[in-house]
């Protein structure tokens, strides 16, 4: 069943109009309505927008973080659920905002990364410069599997002024291969990362070459 056919934007918009007239009582009914859609199609775009509208206009925030956790329990790759998590963290009147939730969210995302380092969602969710992020990157690099997001994250962190420790530097160096041309004269860590990525992530070879070309000259060795 294609969830998109269930959800017509016009009808959803009409539901908003009706719900607005009914007030906060309509909240649980609207939330239940979207929940049913997600049961069939957990990433339905317009249903998620509608759900966000309901929460902001009519309330019902109390169980939302739990609902996100439940959806991610079922499918940790559900990017809509991660997005909703971010929405709840920043907007819920019950949670204290980004600052208050930062620690637990970093832990939550890192747990997801450790379980599935190839899952892009938690990597994009990690928008914070935090030592736990550095450790997570290191663990992934050492496993030598599915490390493209770990390298990409380290590259971004280097751009923010992050100074990696020797362990991280060694882990990166060990991913270089002697016959791929990037070893030798190039001792710049960020450039190394770009070279490794151009090799390991060939779909984005142009992008990594471009990233390397715009690196500041005085990069950390």
């Amino acid at each position, binding site marked *: 069943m294609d969830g998109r056919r269930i959800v017509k934007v016009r009808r959803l918009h009409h539901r908003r109009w009706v719900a607005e007239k009914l007030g906060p009582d309509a909240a649980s009914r609207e939330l239940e309505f979207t929940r049913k859609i997600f049961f069939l199609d957990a990433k339905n*775009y317009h249903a998620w927008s509608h759900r966000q509208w309901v929460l902001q206009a009519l309330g019902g925030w109390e169980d939302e973080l739990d609902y996100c956790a439940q959806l991610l329990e079922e*499918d940790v790759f559900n990017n809509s659920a991660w997005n909703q998590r971010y929405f709840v963290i920043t907007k819920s009147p019950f949670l204290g905002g980004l600052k208050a939730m930062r620690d637990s969210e970093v832990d939550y995302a890192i747990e997801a990364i450790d379980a599935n380092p190839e899952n892009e969602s938690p990597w994009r969710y990690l928008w914070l410069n935090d030592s736990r992020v550095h450790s997570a990157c290191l663990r992934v690099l050492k496993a030598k*599997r599915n490390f493209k997001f770990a390298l990409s994250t380290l590259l971004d962190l280097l751009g923010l002024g992050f100074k990696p420790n020797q362990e991280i530097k060694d882990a990166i160096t060990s991913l270089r291969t002697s016959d791929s041309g990037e070893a030798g004269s190039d001792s710049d860590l960020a450039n190394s990362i770009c070279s490794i990525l151009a090799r390991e992530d060939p779909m984005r070879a142009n992008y990594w070459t471009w990233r390397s070309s715009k690196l500041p000259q005085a990069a950390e060795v």
Partner: protein
Amino acid sequence: MEPPPPPPPPPSGTTVTQRDQWRVEQEVGRIYSFFAQLPPAAQSFALEVQRDNHIEYLTRGLRGLAPSFGSLDASRPWICYWIIHSLALLGEPIDAELEDSVIDFLSRCQDPSGGYGGGPGQLPHLATTYAAVNSLITLGGSRSLSSINRDKVHNFLRQMKQPSGGFRMHDGGEIDVRACYTAISVASTLNILDDELAEKVGDFILSCQTYEGGIAGEPGSEAHGGYTFCGLATMILINEADRLDLSRLIDWVVFRQGVECGFQGRVNKLVDGCYSFWQGGACALLQKLHPFGLSEGGEDESTDSIDSSLYAASNVSEQEEQENNLESASPQVDGTCQFKQGGPQSASCSINTGNASYNFLERRAEGGSLFNSSALQQYILLCSQLPEGGFRDKPGKFRDLYHTCYCLSGLTVCQYGRSKHADSPPLPWDVVGPYSNLLEPIHPLHNVVLSKYQEANEFFAG
């Protein structure tokens, strides 16, 4: 030719996302493997744009559309645009009688107080206004262009404008990034874009850029390819693109191209041919923005080798990993490919919004593509194209006019992706398949064939 053996079942202990992704990779992998073992002549044929069959499919669609008045279907202007734009990309003129009936039909969709509805007598709507205007511009000629009542369209746009800066799709309709794009694009092509319409649009779109880097339809929603194109194009049209976090945006967009070689619309979603335009087109825009103003580099040579990559695809059999990923099958891009940035001179943004669209064409796109152009062309031609005519989302789906339009639009974006100017002919190796695959170039902000945009630009300049 024996049918291929049925694919193994997906690995156990996986989520819905992983299973769906795995199935698509299997299907696409089979197509690429099959292609790889074809003799060269057959490969050549497989990579050809099947012009005649596409033209027949499209023309039949147009004939079926024009005379039908009874239907309450609100998307007929869209269908007009998808067909007319596709035919224009293929360089195929439309029969004069058919053209006249389309112009007449669209004229009847025009609301007396301004804007175009989905059909005669239907309330005006920004999306159908965009589709109608783009269709009429693509048809070209004074009859078509003069049928547009610009003053009334302007009134309609002003009515849809919201205090927050965004636009409402129609009276009582949703406010989102797509509404902003359709409004601003129409205003720009009709030369009626003014400060009042542009005011605070940038604020609204900025509020829709998410933590991921892409742009959502509304503040808080998920980053999405369609809205990313719309948001980015709108910001460029109002000269506010530099307000976006461009590096995060670029990072998000380039990662949307997966092992299947096509683009997905969102993180962890499935590849879809239409994103060839929404995401590929966004990359093309970003390439021209020169956000980091670096100095120009040397010559650019890409020797993307499809044969070796598809040979690799045919060797993808059992994998140890659960997810059977096809990363080894992605086309090899020559490591010397440099993505170059233009000089700082093109960064000067004219405050005169009326010229932003035209001036954008003058910007030089230096060097290589931000995305993997040959891989995307491969996906479009081998996985989306149907030899009997039309294009589809992905293998297993049916063709439709929307996907035909956006796959062809994505294809032309790829072909001209490294051209120094919007319409300079690409080098042979930038065109996957025979050089006769070359389509007409487009204006990358409006998705209208460039020569038609230029004709309209002159027509409405007065």
